């Protein structure tokens, strides 16, 4: 790509933001391996994790060396949304996190794929994967929300608990020419439709706050994230300079 130095920095920071989202959520989904409620979900969750890891590798490689960026940056240098670093919780929490994020990612990549930014080819490929992720999350939201009373209670609790992390997704990311307010409107419409179909109530708490508005994108994370990185980076950091 031919860019001016300024654009290059903006592109690098955008690649990091999107790459970190994919990397961190992939890691969280990887924690499910061997714990899923049904074997088909072992396959599905690992499948989604792998897609996201693939996206992360392409994006981080645009910004530098993928392994240096993943394993040698400290918490304050990560640019991912706070939403994706949230612990898995129960299956409903994982599904709520997937629903919020994959809907966002689907809308975002659809717009990027139609544009002319250097991210267009990548988004064109990712949008096919993300359409599947978003369908998977929607289907499970329906099954948990409109299944048993327990499923309904747990799913409602999960969508409520993660609601406060959703405003951050629509803070503009430098280097991405995206109509953020329109993206947010489309996201809210789609989420509202799915939650209603699932007989769930759309949460009414704040979606942004002094701490959560864009915080992850600025390197301010939640407490569980440091522990996640400690586990993820430990082996790589224990053998400086080694190749694997």
């Amino acid at each position, binding site marked *: 790509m031919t860019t001016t130095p300024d654009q290059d920095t903006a592109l690098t920071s955008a690649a990091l933001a999107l790459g970190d989202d994919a990397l961190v959520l992939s890691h969280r989904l990887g924690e499910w391996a061997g714990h899923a409620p*049904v074997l088909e979900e072992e396959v599905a969750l690992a499948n989604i994790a792998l897609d996201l890891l693939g996206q992360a590798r392409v994006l*981080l490689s645009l910004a530098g060396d993928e392994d240096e960026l993943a394993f040698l940056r400290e918490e304050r240098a990560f640019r991912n949304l706070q939403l994706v670093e949230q612990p898995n919780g129960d*299956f409903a929490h994982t599904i709520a996190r997937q629903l919020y994020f994959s809907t966002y990612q689907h809308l975002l990549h659809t717009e990027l794929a139609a544009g002319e930014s250097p991210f267009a080819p990548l988004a064109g490929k990712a949008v096919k994967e993300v359409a599947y992720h978003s369908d998977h999350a929607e*289907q499970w939201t329906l099954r948990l929300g409109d299944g048993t009373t327990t499923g309904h209670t747990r799913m409602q609790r999960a969508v409520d608990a993660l609601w406060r992390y959703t405003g951050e997704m629509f803070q503009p990311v430098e280097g991405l020419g995206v109509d953020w307010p329109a993206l947010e409107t489309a996201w809210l419409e789609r989420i509202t439709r799915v939650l209603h179909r699932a007989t769930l109530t759309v949460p009414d708490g704040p979606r942004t706050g002094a701490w959560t508005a864009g915080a992850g994108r600025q390197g301010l994370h939640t407490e569980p994230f440091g522990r996640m990185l400690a586990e993820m980076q430990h082996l790589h950091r224990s053998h400086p300079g080694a190749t694997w």
Partner: protein
Amino acid sequence: MVDGVGAHAGGGTGDGTEYERAFDAAVAADERIEPRDWMPDAYRATLVRQIAQHAHSEIIGMQPEANWITRAPSLRRKAILMAKVQDEAGHGLYLYSAAETLGTGREELLDKLHSGRQKYSSIFNYPTLTWADVGAIGWLVDGAAITNQVPLCRCSYGPYARAMVRICKEESFHQRQGYELLLALSRGTPAQHAMAQDAVDRWWWPSLMMFGPPDDESQHSAQSMAWKIKRHSNDELRQRFVDICVPQAESLGLTLPDPDLRWNEERGHHDFGPIDWTEFRDVLKGNGPCNEERLTRRRRAHEEGAWVRESAAAYAAKHTTGETGAIHA
């Protein structure tokens, strides 16, 4: 299948009936037995036991490797490991489907696994203590599994044989990746090389035990070979595996932990030291290093997931008119 055989769908005891003779002739002619064909009750029971144990091994076998997913030292290795663990879940699903063609259900089989009434491969009761263990499992454990399973692609029971064709392709790929992981470590820093050697030292003997007890102690072997479920004896396959591994270990630059291992010109095979069958029997009895942990983890995943499966079933009952992308509980 012959018309009217359905009347005997429950199978028979092998008292020389027309069905028995047709079954024997089909096995003798290397034809495949299919789900609706008549088969002896004992043949059906043996297959259910073996296929279920095989499926359970894939599912329990996810745990020792999944143990390292969150700590994989590069993104490339992490992707390979995730894909492998995902494949194992898929293999479990193929195999449960194959078992179900024999008239049993996945729920029933999982229940038998969780209550300890059906077994899984003893190898997965060993812990993965370092990253190199992931490579040792790929090279040795998958290598032993392939040696065992390739002949099953010609097994007399069609659904099992066809599942094995698909599984063996993917397993060979995993095995090469495990070998390549160990090679990178072996050629890496001294600490990485030592990590690889330590893993091979710990996994070598348990891998040899994967072929089962020696031929003179193997209770099911003779009948399974007569039915062409099994094509080679335990000791024969174990010898084949040792002969394959010795040159591979050399090219890896790693040693195998057996002072008695040497080429025997006369036999045209490698001689190797005695296996600790006491350890093997202990692990099989449930007293290996991780038996308790593996089963507890599996039971917990199942129990903690009960509400999810129940909710999916309740949703399906409410919306029976062909929801697209239905997810089965």
